């Protein structure tokens, strides 16, 4: 029977469960599962909302051989306006475990491009990962979104940062650095030197339960500072970060009584393989005029420190936010967070290489929450 791509309906749920079971049994990667439910748990399409998820399946008779999701959203392109685009995410193919289905990956991505030529993907784990390679072959423009981190508690970091402790001799060195205090000194010195470069001036940070019109005004005032960015008006922010979501912290930053920016922060899901028992906080999303980015970064970092984060991480592409992170003592680490724009989307972003410095891409873009931060 021929494989056809169709929207995910409730009737497909048992076949998706079976697809997930086959993937799980053949691989150790716990991320290789597709939504068990046809209706997305995050950003389902309800009413006239500006951002929503939609799922599609590669159906082979009664079996499911592949799946992908599109996150429909609006982006602002400086000098051109607002466009409806989609993020291609959670693409899974039976070809991962059975090469006789190697064609499914091509079917999925081509189907997505046919549905939304203004397509992008984000994350992917680096240029060498299969999806990034596939999108590159299809003529997508790829660029890395820089990664930054700041160690709040060096002792815990040195003992728990599993990805840096892979070899025995390195683990011994890190233990010694933790116990003797030399690691604490080195990390605080490196971050302290980095943090001497700038001061954001006075500001007030307060936690809010929901973003309202003040946030929309900030979006309108500052959007021309970015060459491209997902729309972050009040309506979109209320959908992305609803008051009902108590897992995230929304920070409003003001100066002299007037709002100058905002940030959304949260604790990353547990990942003992990478981070051991560390508490990892993430600066997930943020917005301000470039001159006020430093205040927002510091306010976000304080909010995470207050919550007991041992390590704070963020991915930011815009040069003002990168500078703000560096000036707040964040260090740049290796990034595997890839932004890939389809040919049609790349046309809108020309000159791509020049404009990418001012792309506003954060950890909240792409498949965003709840998985990807």
């Amino acid at each position, binding site marked *: 029977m021929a*494989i056809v*791509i169709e929207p995910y309906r409730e009737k497909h749920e048992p076949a998706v469960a079976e697809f997930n079971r086959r993937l799980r049994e053949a691989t150790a990667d716990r991320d290789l599962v597709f939504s068990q439910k046809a209706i997305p748990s995050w950003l389902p399409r309800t009413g006239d909302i500006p951002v929503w998820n939609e799922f599609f399946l590669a159906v082979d008779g009664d079996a499911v051989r592949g799946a992908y999701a599109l996150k429909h959203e609006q982006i602002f392109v400086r000098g051109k306006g607002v466009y409806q685009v989609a993020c291609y995410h959670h693409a899974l193919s039976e*070809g991962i475990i059975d*090469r006789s289905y190697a*064609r499914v990956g091509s*079917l999925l991505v081509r189907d997505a491009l046919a549905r939304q030529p203004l397509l992008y993907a984000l994350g992917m784990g680096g240029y060498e990962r299969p999806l990034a*390679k*596939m999108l590159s*072959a299809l003529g997508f423009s790829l660029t890395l979104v820089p990664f930054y981190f700041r160690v709040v508690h060096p002792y815990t970091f040195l003992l728990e940062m599993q990805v840096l402790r892979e070899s025995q001799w390195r683990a011994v060195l890190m233990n010694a650095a933790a116990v003797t205090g030399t690691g604490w000194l080195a990390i605080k010195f490196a971050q302290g030197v980095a943090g001497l470069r700038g001061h954001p001036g006075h500001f007030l940070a307060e936690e809010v339960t929901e973003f309202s019109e003040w946030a929309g005004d900030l979006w309108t005032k500052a959007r021309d500072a970015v060459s491209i960015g997902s729309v972050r008006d009040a309506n979109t922010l209320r959908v992305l970060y609803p008051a009902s979501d108590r897992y995230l912290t929304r920070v409003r930053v003001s100066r002299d009584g007037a709002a100058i920016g905002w940030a959304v922060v949260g604790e990353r899901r547990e990942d003992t393989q990478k981070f051991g028992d560390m508490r990892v906080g993430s600066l997930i999303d943020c917005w301000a005029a470039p001159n006020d980015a430093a205040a927002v970064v510091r306010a976000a970092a304080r909010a995470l420190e207050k919550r007991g984060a041992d390590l704070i991480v963020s991915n930011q592409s815009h040069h003002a936010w990168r500078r703000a992170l560096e000036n707040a003592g964040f260090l740049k680490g290796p990034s595997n967070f890839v932004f890939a724009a389809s040919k049609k989307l790349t046309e809108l972003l020309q000159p791509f290489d020049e404009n990418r410095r001012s792309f506003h891409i954060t950890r909240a873009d792409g498949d965003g929450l709840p998985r990807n931060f």
Partner: protein
Amino acid sequence: MKVTTFDQIRTMASDLFGVPAESISAASSPETIETWDSIQHLNLVLALEERLNVQLSPEEIEQMKSVGDVVKLVEGKLQAVPK
């Protein structure tokens, strides 16, 4: 000697999959060529479109289960092109 569609596709597949052309037959498929994975499948689709100047629909990509299937598909498309 006339170069057949099979020869052309076999050469493409040999380049893409990194296997000797002689080892590729009409029955060759992702199950018999270890390097024929999803990325190389897409590269094969793109190579066919670029070098043989054909456009492949999702339904046609779905039919590409072996080299023989690819040859049959491409021959059908080339014959359908108005001379």
